[in-house]
């Protein structure tokens, strides 16, 4: 069973084919990793799937519904959530408020009750805050709840983004380099977190450079090179494929690695 299906995706920037004919699918409870050398088009692919860019060709289906070209907020309403490689946290809001914004789709959001602060608004606010605090505890940021997000360290911001994405209760979660810049302990925590999320039945799509993490937690791996799909398979299949080594290390490096 697949929930997210991208078919023959392509996009060009000024004649450069950043992504060219990539297809993949993600299933509930499974972790699909997309890897590849720098500039392979991984983040671009994420931007297309999450609606930030519009693909010039191909289609995207979410839960058997064609969602090609829908804007990000519509995709979010259909259960797609993501994090960013270059942090996109709400700097001037507290950590807790960041996660509360993640609950946006789960909240009733009519203007007039908000302006007059009716009891229902206050009650909902309390519920949203409680839910946000639970999520912060889950990613180990409970103590930072009322700290302005802009003053949190890098690793904490990464986890904050995951908490915010989870707050929307997504069916599909796209994680763009969640462990980048994190130390070994933090990476371990993120590894646990991702597995927990997948165990709850969320389809996780992961872009990551930390190969140890990728090999350990992925169910399937898709390798991209210069915007094109190179190999797709289980971690074992991908690790043993000479084409993958070549893509990362070049022909010469691959020969060296084979001998080593």
């Amino acid at each position, binding site marked *: 069973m697949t929930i997210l299906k991208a078919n023959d995706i392509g996009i060009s920037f000024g004649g450069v084919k950043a992504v060219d004919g990539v297809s993949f699918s993600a299933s509930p409870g499974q972790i699909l990793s997309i890897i590849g050398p720098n500039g392979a088009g991984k983040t671009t692919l994420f931007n297309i799937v*999450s*609606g*930030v860019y519009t693909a010039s060709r191909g289609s995207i289906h979410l839960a058997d519904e064609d969602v090609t070209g829908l*804007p*990000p*907020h519509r*995709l*979010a*309403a259909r259960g797609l*959530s*993501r994090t*960013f490689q270059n942090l*996109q*946290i*709400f*700097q*001037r*809001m507290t950590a807790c*408020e960041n996660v*509360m*914004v*993640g609950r*946006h*789709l789960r*909240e*009733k*959001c009519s*203007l007039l009750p*908000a*302006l*007059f*602060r009716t009891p229902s*608004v206050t009650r*909902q*606010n309390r519920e*949203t*805050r409680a839910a946000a605090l639970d999520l912060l505890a889950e990613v180990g940021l409970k103590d930072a709840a*009322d700290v302005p997000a802009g003053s949190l360290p890098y690793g904490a911001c990464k986890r904050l983004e995951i908490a*915010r*994405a989870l*707050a*929307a209760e997504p069916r599909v979660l796209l994680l763009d380099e969640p462990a980048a810049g994190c130390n070994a302990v933090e990476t371990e925590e993120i590894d646990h977190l991702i597995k927990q999320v997948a165990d709850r039945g969320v389809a996780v799509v992961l872009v990551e450079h930390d190969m140890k993490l990728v090999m350990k937690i992925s169910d399937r791996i898709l390798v991209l090179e210069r915007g094109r799909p190179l190999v797709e398979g289980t971690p074992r299949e991908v690790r043993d494929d000479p084409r993958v080594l070549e893509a990362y290390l070049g022909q010469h490096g691959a020969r060296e690695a084979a001998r080593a």
Partner: protein
Amino acid sequence: MRALLNQRSITLLVLAAVIAALPFVFPSSYYFRVASLVWVSALAAIGLNILMGQAGQVSLGHAAFFGIGAYAVAIGPTHLGIPPWAALLVGAVLSGILAYLVGRPILRLKGHYLAIATLGLGVLVALVITTESRWTGGPDGMPVERLTLFGWRVSGSYTWYWVTGGLLLVGTWIALNLDETPTGRAFRALHDSEVAAQVVGVDVARFKLQAFVIAAIYASLAGSALAFMNGFINPDQAGFLHSVELVTIVVLGGLGSVFGSIVGAAVLITLPQALTIFQEYEHLLLGLIIIVAMIFMRNGIVPSLSGLLVRRARS
């Protein structure tokens, strides 16, 4: 959140106390008049602050809505026979509708482009007011009928002090309410990162539009209040310089701070009155004070000073 709740009620209490206490120290009705001007400007600035400080969208033509509110209460009763209080509501609704219609296309623009588009809107409205002299009295302006509520004629600077003070309290209360709601959070979120707000499901276009309409209605009500208070209105109230003045109040007081808008209005309205003793150097000094304030209090008066107090308290 408890701390924020406190901050919210403290702001309201302080404001109510100031409004109630000032009459005891005011020596003449002239002071009541200046204070009423501050309340009215603060009301318009609080609305603009929701757009600029919360949602992060600039408007350089906001006096247009102030002007629409002012001319609605002038034209309505004089030319169309609408009761003054109803004309105030008509002005607010018209401002809201205009903001909605114009906001749709122009709020797609960002930064400087949005600034120029709103500037254009401001110039356009001011131009219509100046040229349609049959309705508006043209550049000379026109008189405004007194406001009567249930047979009570609202007049005199003492009365208007309380009326505008009450309006400001309500306006402050509403703006503070908004902060801790899904709508308020959506405003602040799209200010910090539009793309991140979108991927958690915030319809960015819709919320920008809401902020624009709210800001327009605030300005319109402030404009109506000023027109009633003065009993006279001229196109300057809808002009570019007044738009700049509103933006200056918001930035000087502190973007995103409701209390800041009130303090900004107090400074920008009372300072020229205080500086009149310097006669021809008045404007020079006013400009200098604003420049120095912005250099030393980069985040605006209220956020900078409260930041300083917090640091003092900690050390």
